[in-house]
């Protein structure tokens, strides 16, 4: 594909997808709005919002990029015993299990330093860890399905899968946070 250096063709190629992704993200905004009062009353949960959204999207995009490269190199078969698939799935969950307890503790400390957390540290770590781990499992499912669909439709996973997965994981991040907060408080 020749590289294009004029604004109009670039905008024509990118704006439709950008519009769809924006609409998807409005969905996660509606979920956030539905528990606005809970978030505003507990600053440590509010601190968690961008980091949960961001980390969810990042886990998804890292996994999508790796599966996409494996796909281009012919190293992936989508069989249940595929070691590339299983190894990357395990790594995604392991990354979430490592990162989210620290993120929860960090959010609580930041909230205390900036005027009060509104929750016990154990609760914030619990909410971050449970939502982060649940999210990692969802991320793996969404990414594998999206890469498989791209593979079956003979699309380049680089073009479609990474933006789709990143934004869908953003939404799932907010939904998971909402469910865990509702159950935990």
């Amino acid at each position, binding site marked *: 594909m020749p*590289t294009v*250096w004029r*604004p109009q063709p*670039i*905008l024509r190629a990118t*704006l439709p997808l*950008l*519009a769809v*992704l*924006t*609409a998807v*993200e*409005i969905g996660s*905004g*509606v979920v*956030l*709005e539905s528990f*606005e009062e809970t*978030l*505003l009353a507990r*600053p440590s949960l*509010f*601190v*968690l*919002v*961008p*980091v*949960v*959204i*961001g*980390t969810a*999207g*990042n*886990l998804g*995009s*890292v996994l999508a990029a790796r599966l996409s490269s494996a796909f281009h190199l012919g190293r992936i078969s989508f069989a249940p015993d595929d*070691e*590339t698939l*299983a*190894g*990357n799935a*395990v*790594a*995604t969950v*392991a*990354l979430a299990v*490592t*990162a989210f307890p*620290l*993120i929860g503790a*960090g*959010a609580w400390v*930041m*909230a205390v330093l*900036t005027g009060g957390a509104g929750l016990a540290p154990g609760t914030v770590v619990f909410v971050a860890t449970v939502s982060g781990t649940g999210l990692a499992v969802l991320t793996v499912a969404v990414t594998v399905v999206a890469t498989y669909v791209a593979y079956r439709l003979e699309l380049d996973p680089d073009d479609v899968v990474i933006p789709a997965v*990143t*934004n869908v994981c*953003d*939404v799932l991040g*907010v939904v998971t946070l909402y469910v865990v907060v509702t159950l935990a408080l």
Partner: protein
Amino acid sequence: MSTLAVARAAYREALPAIALSAVGGLLAGVVLSGARGQFGRVDGLLIVLPALLATRGNVYGTLGARVATGLHQGLIEPTLGGESDRLGVLIATALASGLLASAFAAVLATLATVALPGPQAPLTTLAAIAVLSGLLSGLVLGVLVVAVAVVGYRNGRDPDTLVGPVVTTAGDVFGVAFLVVAVRVVLAAEGG
């Protein structure tokens, strides 16, 4: 490679980027939490927030990928002197699509508040906030992404692997910081 070996390699490779963006996300959260009062003053602000933050990643991540490809292909000179038309075109195009997406997000958020129970979001206020924050964070992110890609390339690093973590981390921090600035400016301009 066995499943465990694949998992170990993937984990090690991704951990620094995930850790960096988590630190950025926490900083963004602190700025956001410090501006909690603003969210009660502008209806729909929380609805539009994820879309605005995602636009930073979607638009400037793509810009970074294009610049990286241009550098690899030798179509972009790795200099920051401003003599490259191509870099200017890429940044201006990214800025334009970021502003369009931000305005679109404000319209969709307003429509969502019309459909849902509760107060309706003020479209002009929300759109002004979205576009102003998109402009400010876009200028900073556009220059930052290009600078990181060019300087990284000159120092023998692959710009593709540098740009991703930089965009997600800086996108969250600047996205939230300039959103808070934009809310203050727009509310002050409206005499609020």
